[in-house]
């Protein structure tokens, strides 16, 4: 029974030209404009192909045996390590134009970074290197700090990805005509007369909206690949993140609708929330350059999604994949439960 409802509601949503424009063409068009406007800004964030870094190793250091492997792998990444016997790291960075300087102690290392993308790149390289080297080893205590680093991404990939996510978060707009018609023309009343419960009524709205936005989003992503040359990195993982992103966005929109019971108010509130989340999460101001406090970013689901997808695009992997999936998954579960509870309470009040 619910299958026919979902099928027909999905047709309804996909036949709406406004939806096709908003979720397929608008993200691509907005991305294209922003790529053109901000390509030089993001280019300044790119790491040079090759640079040098200095290091000293304390005698008897745990790291001594790893140095040959480290320098070999670094040279493959365009980082040439130069050993110093006795040098002041900060002075060496300035004097010899180094991207950074690593002081390997007995059990820990200290990284001095140049204040540019070379320093960030070196820091990132060391983190990845030691993560891989120590993977599987147990009871090894290494004291090293890894400052925040975001790998460079060009404007095409950044805006191509970010705006597919951003428009997906406005998912409730897609359902607005369906919801208004159901309310205005007594269609919901007919559902109730047929004995449909709140869960089924919720699902006949939620599932088609989610599917319609996801389908449009994927068409938009395909267009962005072919028309703009956006690289999505690891496609299956990126798809899963987009899937969860649209699901949680739909759940959020539905929750707001069930609270307000007005399309206009729902759309205004949703836009306000999504705009704020997008602002913090890098949809307007690139999160690499943003001065938003780190704890605010970490509390923002769009930040996790944006960061996971952009890092997947640049590196093919990201530590933010799991946080993005868990965040959106938990958010969806809570919002669905809260919406059904709201529906039940309101139904009791109305009846």
């Amino acid at each position: 029974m619910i299958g026919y409802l979902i099928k027909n509601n999905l047709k309804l949503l996909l036949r709406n030209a406004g939806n096709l424009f908003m979720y397929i063409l608008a993200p691509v068009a907005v991305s294209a404009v922003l790529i053109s406007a901000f390509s030089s800004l993001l280019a300044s964030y790119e790491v040079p192909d090759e640079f040098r870094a200095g290091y000293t190793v304390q005698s008897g250091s745990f790291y001594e045996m790893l140095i040959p492997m480290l320098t070999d792998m670094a040279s493959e990444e365009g980082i040439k390590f130069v050993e110093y016997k006795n040098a002041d790291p900060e002075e060496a960075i300035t004097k010899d134009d180094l991207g950074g300087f690593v002081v390997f102690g007995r059990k820990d290392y200290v990284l001095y970074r140049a204040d540019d993308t070379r320093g960030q790149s070196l820091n990132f390289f060391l983190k990845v290197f030691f993560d891989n080297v120590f993977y599987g080893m147990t009871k090894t205590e290494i004291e090293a700090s890894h400052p925040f680093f975001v790998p460079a991404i060009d404007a095409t990939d950044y805006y191509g990805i970010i705006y597919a996510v951003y428009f997906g978060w406005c998912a409730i707009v897609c359902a607005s005509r369906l919801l208004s018609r159901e309310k205005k023309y007594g269609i919901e009343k007919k559902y109730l007369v047929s004995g449909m419960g709140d869960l089924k009524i919720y699902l006949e709205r939620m599932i088609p909206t989610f599917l319609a936005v996801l389908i449009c989003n994927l068409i938009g992503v395909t267009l962005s690949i072919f028309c703009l040359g956006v690289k999505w990195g690891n496609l299956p993982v990126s798809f899963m993140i987009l899937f969860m992103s649209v699901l949680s966005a739909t759940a959020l929109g539905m929750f707001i609708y069930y609270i307000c019971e007005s399309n206009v108010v729902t759309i205004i509130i949703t836009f306000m929330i999504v705009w704020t989340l997008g602002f913090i999460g890098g949809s307007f101001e690139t999160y690499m350059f943003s001065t938003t406090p780190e704890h605010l970013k970490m509390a923002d689901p769009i930040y996790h999604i944006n960061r996971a997808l952009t890092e997947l695009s640049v590196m093919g992997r990201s530590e933010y994949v799991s946080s993005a999936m868990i965040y959106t998954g938990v958010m969806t579960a809570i919002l669905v439960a809260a919406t059904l509870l709201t529906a039940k309470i309101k139904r009791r009040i109305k009846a």
Partner: protein
Amino acid sequence: METILKLNELTRKYDNHVVVDNVDLEIKKGEIFGLLGPNGAGKSTTMNMICGIVRPTLGSVEFMGKDFGKKNKELCKKLGYIPQDLAIHESLKAWENVELFTSLYGIKGRELKERVKESLEYVGLWERRNDYAKKFSGGMKRRLNIACAIGHHPELLIFDEPTVGIDPQSRNFILEKIKKSNENGATVIYTSHYMEEVESICTRIAIMDNGKIIATGTSEELKKLVVDDISSITLEEVFLTLTGKKLRDI
């Protein structure tokens, strides 16, 4: 005759305002029962309580001998509701609309397809099944609205002003179809502000005002409440005599 629907002391209050006040009514199987009343009389609330959308503050609704207060899926399948609003999706084709609403009652697959065809043929829209509802005239939309509510073969059909804003041909067609449904065994509850319609198809009529049933009977019985010579009065005059001529601004 067997009772299909019984309202027992049905009352609905909103805050301290009594909208439906202690209504007792019995509708027999096979009847076309007209429910009349000015705006704000309590018809819609009564209908909503019959359909199970609104819970009575007091009293109960018995449908086919069972309490309909707690929604019973099997009983829901025996009820068809044609709202005054055009409860159809304009961006769906005619057959898709009928499929959507008929499937609500658990009908699927080949049987669903047959029911869709049967419903559309019944209202004369089978030839236009592939047209979007938005391309239909007002009368065709009303007919589609009916097709959407009859696919599950309900035993009790509730028509809430089904002929508002349509041409005489469409109105005549709909009234003929209501009579045909009744001949085929369906019991009908019919509300309308068109008195001549009610008089022409209803076997029994109740007039409601201020939340109460103020008169029940056949058209002739209602006329006799007002004058002895029933040929000298119309149902509309009876209605105005019983409910008054004061405007009902709600």
